């Protein structure tokens, strides 16, 4: 496995993914702010949470790239469409499994059923993160497919 290729393209792919998600918010497709969502696990301060969240997202994105690289090796080939396919599966997992269990993971997130409490005050994402805007799934899928395509297109197996 090429560690340098994984680190480089994992990082580049995550930067592009983060930019697409932020751009989707700026363009009004979604309210979801991934850095804020992640950063509020550690701090209540809005500005600081976003900074922490960006750092977390870059690290997590690079780690996820390891799974993509493992899949490419198992396949015996990379390529942009293979990466995009894994990205599609990845985004489906995030939306269908990851988002609904967020209230169980995030220490500040309220539950849909119990409502807000003194310690859990953040709006839960709901199924497919639709609470954050009806077009949220579109931007999540798009961002992950591009992330996978970049990884697949540039990752070198040897």
């Amino acid at each position, binding site marked *: 496995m090429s560690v340098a290729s994984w680190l480089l393209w994992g990082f580049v792919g995550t930067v592009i993914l983060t930019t697409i998600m932020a751009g989707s*918010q700026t*363009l*009004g*497709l*979604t*309210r*979801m*702010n991934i850095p*804020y*969502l992640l950063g*509020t696990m550690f*701090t*209540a*301060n*809005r500005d*600081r949470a976003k900074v922490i969240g960006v750092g977390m997202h870059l690290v997590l994105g690079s780690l996820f790239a390891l799974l993509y690289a493992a899949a490419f090796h198992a396949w015996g080939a990379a390529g942009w469409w293979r990466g995009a396919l894994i990205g599609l599966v990845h985004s489906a997992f995030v939306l269908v499994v990851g988002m609904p269990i967020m209230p169980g993971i995030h220490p*500040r*997130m*309220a539950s*849909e*059923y*119990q*409502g*807000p*409490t*003194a310690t859990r*005050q*953040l*709006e*839960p*994402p709901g199924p497919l993160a639709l*609470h*954050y*805007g*009806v*077009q949220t799934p579109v931007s999540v899928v798009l961002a992950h497919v591009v992330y996978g395509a970049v990884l697949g297109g540039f990752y070198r197996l040897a």
Partner: protein
Amino acid sequence: MQEASIRDYAIIGDCRSAALVSRFGSIDWLCWPRFDSSSLFAALLDPIRGGRWSIAPAEPFRSQRRYLPNTNVLETAFETDTGTIRIVDAIPIASEEQTFRLLLPEHEVVRLVVCTRGEVEVETHFEPRPGYAMKRFALRDRGKLGFWVDMGSKCIIFRSDAALSIHADSIAGRQRLRGGEALRFSMSFSSDAPAPLPPLDPWVRDSIERSGAWWEQWIGRAKYEGRHRDAVLRSALLLKLLTYAPSGAIVAAPTTSLPERLGGPLNWDYRYCWLRDASFTARALFGLGYAEEASALVGWLIHTTRLTRPELRTLYDVFGNSPKPERVLPHLRGYRDSRPVRVGNAAQCQIQLDVYGEVIEASVRFIRAGGSFDSETAALLKDLGVYICKHWKDPDNGIWEPRGIRLPHTHSRLLCWVGLDGLLELHWKGHLRRAPLELFKQTRDAIRREIELHSWNDRLQSYVRIPETEELDSSLLALALYGFEAPSSPRMRSTFDRIRERLGADDWLFYRNRALAAEGDGAFGICSFWAAHYLAQGGGPLSEARDLFEAMLGLANDVGLFAEEIDPRSGCPLGNFPQGFTHVGLINAALSLHEREQGVSVTDDRASRSDAALEIRG
């Protein structure tokens, strides 16, 4: 639903946005997320279509209100035959330390309803109408997470412990409250998900207390100890509320299209920052001891003017950009049928030569207060001086911004003189090197000669608005306020007498001028405060200054707020409300009165310039 008039409103805000709350318990104006954003509630401009959020007794009531002492937190008491409720309204604001500790909504309005006597049936109507009542939205009930007004990329979250339900595109409900019982309401704005949803109890009460403490701490820094302290501090609180905290800019007013003449077309958008107001605002803030806010304002001016240097626009948005072009909203009927409703302001394309002097004079006040400039700022100010030297003879639209007419205004030339005089002072104090001093000095003296020769009318024994005419204007009082003429000089005294004779609407109120006045126009609040300021500076007896000032205070509404104008016939406010510049005039007049009474100077008005002028004129 009772239709409120301008005087029935009070303002709440968080130094980013503001809401107008009527004495009938209705929030009839709110633009989010900032002052010049589109409206969420605009019943002020169209009671049917505009949208509102009202909470009030279902039965007939009498209401009385006040700001909680030294805050911008509003308390309204509603008395009915069966009981009394008290509603406390605030747009919460928090200290820096609190923003680190608490999950705060991006913007929020909180309302706390407490029954203090008997039993009262409380009725709530929440009618959001985003985008000046033009934007489509979906209203959803998310159970324990509240009601959501989904506008695509942004949403409004409306929560309460009252029993409420959706009725078409509104939310409504009634609930009977008994003595000691309370209802809590929160409406927050979210463009970032996940949105914070703090539990209403004790969040609403805590937010009100936090905001009250923040305002109290801020106003506690005021150094004013003169008479009418409450009115002066209320004005200071309003100025702070109208300050856009992230940039330091101050918007002229939080509203658009409140008419200068009822039923007329003089309806303008004031949710922007006018350079014209700069130096008097800086004087007011420095005079009250708010050096930090005054410096932020000067910083904003310098930053903003860099973008278009050396030419200046008349107005900018809170970040120093040009506002979007002016447009009409034909679907809104306007306040009391005063059409059209406009958003944006075409005055941004006007030429107003006075703004150059205003920016320089505000910078001079910053230096007098102990500030300093970098070399780039000094170069910018020098460029403004060179621009003045090239253009001071040009006709312009003038301080009152009439559309389509450019004339050589005495007031604009005065401010050109003020600008050059200020630059010479800056040079004398070592803040402006490598400037064309001889050019500045010669032009300054040429402007003085021009005003003294051609803007003075011998027959009238008065300065005049336009050289070689007989037109008067209240802005001529600025000749004394900026130190061009001594307030007690014979020329200034007789000019004041003529203004009073010809522009006085009654004993206390002044029209700006006759050329722009028409049937139904109001008198300008700032003109009366200029007059009080002028008298206090030595233009007349102290008692006369005090009488005028106190008479004006009597024309504020019940919570101490002024609009731009006052109808001399009814005493009712007209124009955008509340207007920062009128309150700047109030503060400056009060500061001058206090100086005269105490024989001390807190505003550092003319002394420094006189020294500099003597040195240079030497």
